[in-house]
Each structure stands twice: as C-alpha cells, then as structure tokens.
C-alpha cells in the first residue's frame, strides 16, 4: 500500500481547534452548571422566582455576626488549621524530603510510598483509626482545635509531597549543594541561600494546595466533633440554605484563587523579566 507523504495519516496528533473548543465547552459546562445554579440560588427571593441581593447583604451586615457565630468560628478555625498544617508541611515534610534527596537517596521510594498512602485511605476509615489516637492527643495537647492539624498534616501529604518532589526532580540539588559547600557555605547557608530559593515554586505550591485541602475538609472534623468551615456550613444549611450556599461558593472561589496563584508563582519576577529580554547569542 502506498501512501502520499502530504496526506499521510498522522497518529496521536492534537485535535483540531474546533474539536478542542467543543471538548472544553462540554467539560466546562459540566463544571459550571452546578456553580451557576448555586449562584442563582443565592439571589432567590422565596421560591417564586424573584431575585434579590438580600442574602448576601445580610451575611455581611454587622448584626449578622451573632446569628452566624458558629460560621465565624468555623472560618477562623479552618484558617488556623490551614496555617498549622502548612507549618507541619514546611517544618517536617520539607526538611525530610531535602535530607532524603541529598543524603539517603535509597529511601526515596519508601518516603514516596508513605506519602501516597493517605490518598488510598478514605477519610472515614482514617477517622476510625484517628479517634483513639486523638483521645491521647487531647490528653497531651489539650482539646483545642489546632490539634486537628496533626490529622490534616497526614491528609495533605500526597499533595504536598508531589508538589515538592517535582521541584526537587527539576533541580540538581546534590550538585548545587556540593558547589555551594565547595565555595565555603555551611549547611545553613546551603539551605537558605541555595536550596530554598530554588525550591520556592514547589514550597509555595505545596503550601497553597495544603490550604485548599484543609479548607475543604469535612469528614474528619465532623466525625471528631470539631467545628471547621465545612461543618459550620453544613450546620447553617439546616437553618439557612442561602447562607450555606454563599459560604460554599466563597470557599470555592478562595480555593480557585489559590490554585491560580500556584500556577503563577512559577519563578521570581526578575527571572521572568530577564527571560522576556532574552537575546540569544
């Protein structure tokens, strides 16, 4: 069989522009429809079909603080938990990963395996194991909300691990730290002046994604009887469905913004600028 080179069938090519827009449109619609419906719902006045801003304005009006106190507690708790979780990622996971990459490369598979496990265990199963652990945690650290971050530190592991590891893979940390040491840098300087600046992208991505995961967490908090954003939203939805949907939308928007930032934080600004001015010679 002979085949002309000009109209040879190409395998594995990109879809045409039209096909791409159609695919994007269908997928986008599937995602957007519930969101648009939620948004429309928050503007409803009763169930007759009139629209109003009143649900939004009452939520943000000063006198509503008392009505929605549990919601405010939930939001504050969630942000506190997000901060502590990011702290756990940065103080425990990051140094461990750098250490494994530099000194114990053989442990990489083990570390990866451990970090991926939480994604394979449903949160509800995790709680069964966590409940007796938290009996002890409460005895040691007291019952305040931030201790929940220990559990969240585990649930965010797979995401934070991937974000940091992909950055570690892209940078030759071994050679860079050896070069820095040969130039007179101690380990502290190697970390602060060479490794962290070059792992910036991965660290930021890991932090943001951890925040997003923590803000969206419901199961563990609910089953361990703690109040966070999601449990508060659920509670409110029973008395005021409009406000609950507004909160869900805001949380989604916040997570969306975080993810956008992850995409943007790629490099320090001056490198981007330099790249724009780049002239090859």
């Amino acid at each position, binding site marked *: 069989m002979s085949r002309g080179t000009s109209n040879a069938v190409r395998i594995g090519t990109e879809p045409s522009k039209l096909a791409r827009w159609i695919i994007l449109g269908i997928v986008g619609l599937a995602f957007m429809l519930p969101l648009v419906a939620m948004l429309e719902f928050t503007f409803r006045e009763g169930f007759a079909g009139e629209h109003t801003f009143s649900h939004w304005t009452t939520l943000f009006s000063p006198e509503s603080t008392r009505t929605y106190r549990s919601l405010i507690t939930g939001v504050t708790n969630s942000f506190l938990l997000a901060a502590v979780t990011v702290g756990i990622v940065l103080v425990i996971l990051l140094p461990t990963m750098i250490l494994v990459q530099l000194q114990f490369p053989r442990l990489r598979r083990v570390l990866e395996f451990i970090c991926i496990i939480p994604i394979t265990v449903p949160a509800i199963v995790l709680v069964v194991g966590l409940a007796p652990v938290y009996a002890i945690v409460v005895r040691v650290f007291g019952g305040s909300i931030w201790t929940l971050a220990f559990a969240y530190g585990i649930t965010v592991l797979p995401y934070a691990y991937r974000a940091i590891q992909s950055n570690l893979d892209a940078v030759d940390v071994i*050679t860079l730290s050896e070069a820095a040491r040969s*130039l007179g840098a101690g380990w502290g300087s190697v970390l602060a002046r060479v490794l962290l600046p070059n792992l910036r992208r991965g660290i930021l991505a890991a932090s943001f994604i951890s925040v997003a995961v923590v803000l969206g967490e419901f199961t563990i908090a609910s089953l361990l009887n703690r109040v966070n954003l999601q449990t508060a939203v659920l509670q409110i939805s029973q008395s005021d469905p409009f406000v609950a949907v507004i909160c869900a939308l805001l949380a989604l928007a916040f997570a969306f913004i975080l993810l956008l930032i992850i995409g943007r934080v790629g490099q320090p600004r001056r490198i981007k600028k*330099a790249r724009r001015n*780049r002239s090859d010679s």
Partner: protein
Amino acid sequence: MTIAPSPAAPATATSAGATVELIDVIKDYSGQRALNSIGLSVRPGEFVALLGPSGCGKTTALRSLAGLERIDGGEIRIDGVNVANVPTNKRDIGMVFQSYSLFPHLTSLENVEFGLRMRKVGRDERRERASEALEMVGLGHLAARFAHQLSGGQQQRVALARALVTRPRVLLLDEPLSALDAKVRLQLRDEIRRIQTDLGITTLFVTHDQEEALAVADRVAVMRDGVIEQIGSPEELYATPATPFVANFVGLSNRVDAELVHGKVEVFGEVLEALGEPLADGPVTALIRPEDILIDPAGDAGVEATIVTSSFLGSLRRTNLRLPDDSVLSVQHAVSERAQPGDVVRLRLRGAAVSVSPRA
C-alpha cells in the same frame, strides 16, 4: 605507597598554590574498594591530571580531596596539614563540576560573588573581584545573565570564575569539559591551562579523555581499579608506559604477538628492547604505536602486509593493514604517502624499544 614527584616534570609556577598529598588513601563503597591505598603528591602550582576509564576511582579521589566523600583510611594533606576530617566548606578549595552547577536563581555575577559572600567580603570589594574574575574568563559582558541564558561553555566558564574568585589553595576540576561539544572543549581546555598558569594555582583535573590529559597536564596519573598505575609527564607516559594498561589507555597501540627472549623481543624481523617490568621468557604481546610503523612500498626488509583501508585525518593519514596471519594493524603516516587498498607493502619498525605484556 606514595609516589614522589618525578624530577623530570617541569615546575610550572612559583606562587600561590599549595602542596597536595594523598597518603595511602582508602575509600570503600558498600564493600567495593574505590580507592586502594592511593598515594599522590602534587607540587605547588602543578597541574596534574587524573586519567582513567570510568569506575577507576579518579572522581572518588578528587571528591575525597574536596571533602565531598569521607575516606576510610589514610591522610589527605594540603600544605602539610591533614584535612581528612575538615568539612568541605573549610578546606579552601575551588571546584568545577561535570554537570552544570551554577545557581539557577542568581546571575553570573551573583554566582561568582557567592564564595566571597560566604567569606563575608564587603559588597564593593565583592562586586569588583567578581567582575574581574568574569573578565578573566572572557564573560564580563554577560554578568547579568542567568544560567539558562548561557551556553554550556559559558556556564562552565562562569563556574571556573566562581571557583577561582576566592583565590583557593587548590583547584579541582571534575571532568569540566565532558558535557561540551568538541570545539568548545578544545578552546576551554587551553583557556583553563592559561589561567591556571597565570594564577599558579595547584590544580587537579579529572578526565577520561587521554588526549585532554596529555595536552594540558604537567603530569598525568593513570588510574585503574582504585590505584595509580603510573604517574609521569605526558611524554614519559606515552614513550615509556610502565604497564600494558597504560600503553593501551594512553594513545593507540597495535597488539602484535611476539616471543620474549632475555628481555628482548623480535617484531617484524627486528630485535627490540622490552620496556616495563621484567617478564619471564615466553610468548608476549608487543604494543606498538601506529606512528612507530613505517610503510615501505618497495623494500624487501620487514614483514609483508596488505592495505585494507586508508583514512585521511587532516594532518595525517591512518591506514589499516592485514598481516599474513590475518591480524590487522593500524599505521599512522604522512598524508603524502598514499596507499591504495589491496596494495601489498612491507612494514618496518621505528625505534629500538617496545612495551610488552604477557600473552593471555
């Protein structure tokens, strides 16, 4: 075992460099002996190449000297002081790596400044010295570039400037040229040698490329299986290889079967002195350089051979010939001597000595 510097080696420079000594250095990698009681002594300002096939321990030796590997025995002395337990950052060395090692988040200038910053040199002096160092490697105009905006050769130049700007006592080069293309490699090789001679800095250069080692080094240490087989000037290594391995590794060699009788071998009807450690009489392999064989189209002395192929290499011509016993020899000769495949010629030997190894 320590190998003393050979008196024949030229003294290169007078100034800044330090003496470097490896004394019975041992390094094991999970049961494998990477360095087997290595001894090496480098004089101030000397340029020594560590040459050998991959896995011979040359990089391990260099990394041990840098403090990037902990040694399991022996001493490493810089200026007479044992530094075996001194961490890398306190050894006052400069190092250029095989893989590109510029800090990606810093400009060329900031990269070069890094070592000075670590030594708490003030901002203005830092700038000035870093700029000078960049000028020295011919990259003053690229000070504001980031690594990803530089070619491989330029990156290695910046790395060289970065290693030298702190005026270290020893410069360690770990195959700095092997990632570069041939032309840039030659250029940078000569430039490294020029700068090294100017600064008079003691330099160790690891390479697997014998041509590179012979071209730049004052002395070359040929390594195999964690030991130094021979150390000497490039000329010594080439003309009087101490072992068959060295003869084989340094330059091309033809292997010709011969018989050893009382320290002499007969090759192509000529009786030659056998070089290297004395061997028992018996069958040996003589190692003959391609340029030590003469092609005689007309004569009747020597041995008969048939030309197989002949290739033009620019300044010379390399011809492969088949001997009556079907073995193939490679001969290097002047371009003007043209040979046609199929021609029958006679071969003679130049020189009076040849290195031999026991035949397996």
